[in-house]
């Protein structure tokens, strides 16, 4: 209030700057928020992919299925690791290390999701490592759903974080 009364010209300038900068800033904030929401939703999705594989391995006797059973277990372990990393506050390690870890975890999660999705679709039509699925049962439907969601959410996250990370690394190199 005091400054408004004391320096009307400066206030007008500040207000003008605020008007000009607001859209870019708002867009950046929105992008950040979208990235964070996508990251957490992607983390939950890949954890659910892992949960379905764990349930199938331990409760639906897939531990008895050669090769595929082992792949289910590995998928569960991998999904749990990348899911936990994506939820962890790794940015506390620093901007570049934190974002790099998140980007790698997101890539890993997408790799697991796409690998699972493609393998599942193949095994619906032809034996894969000697195993063929028996139709689109609930566990298959859920896995396909969570695979798709993981890929979509973490794809959005990477599209937002990737360019920023590349810029940050380039800036850090120039500063050296």
């Amino acid at each position, binding site marked *: 209030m005091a400054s408004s009364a004391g320096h009307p010209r400066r206030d007008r300038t500040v207000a003008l700057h605020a008007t000009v900068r607001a859209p870019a800033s708002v867009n950046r904030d929105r992008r950040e928020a979208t990235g964070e929401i996508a990251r957490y939703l992607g983390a939950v999705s890949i954890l659910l992919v892992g949960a379905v594989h764990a349930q199938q391995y331990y409760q639906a*006797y897939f531990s*008895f299925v050669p090769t595929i059973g082992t792949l289910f277990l590995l998928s569960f372990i991998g999904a749990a690791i990348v899911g936990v990393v994506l939820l962890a506050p790794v940015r506390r390690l620093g901007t570049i290390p934190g974002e790099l870890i998140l980007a790698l975890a997101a890539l890993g999660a997408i790799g697991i999701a796409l690998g699972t999705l493609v393998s599942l679709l193949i095994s619906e039509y032809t034996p894969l490592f000697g195993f063929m699925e028996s139709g689109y049962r609930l566990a298959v439907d859920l896995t396909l759903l969570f695979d798709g969601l993981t890929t979509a959410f973490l794809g959005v996250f990477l599209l937002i974080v990737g360019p920023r990370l590349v810029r940050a690394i380039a800036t850090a190199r120039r500063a050296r």
Partner: protein
Amino acid sequence: MASTRTNKLWIKPLTAFGASVVVAAVAAAFAFAGGTATSGTKVAIGNSRLGRILVDSKGITLYDFPPDKGTVSVCYSACAAIWPPLITKGKPVAGPGVRASLLGTTKRKDGKLEVTYNGHPLYYFVSDRKPGQTTGQGLNQFGGPWWVLSPAGKEIHRG
């Protein structure tokens, strides 16, 4: 005029090509249909550590599942993925030692025909990959034990 003559030049080869494609497609369709519609799955007898048991044409062990309701299978979803039913597309064929009178079929929910023997729907176990393997024998999965069958169609409970 010249262009009309050129167009006419293409008509014969194009027609011949089109006709040969149609003939080839029809022949392939007949061959495919003929190859799958009438083939009945063969059931045979094989040797294993449990004695002479029911196997498929490649010697892979077949099992029955006591919780099945007579000839009606209760094994679907994850169960059918781990214990795939023995499917046939025609009347099952009895190999040497197999009693043809005990062979039959039962319709599954998806419309496929599953082979039965002495009233028991037959299944593979996903872990059996070679002739003579009986890795599913006695396993308690999906609500009951799984047993191999003798040539007489009786469950073998040892092993």
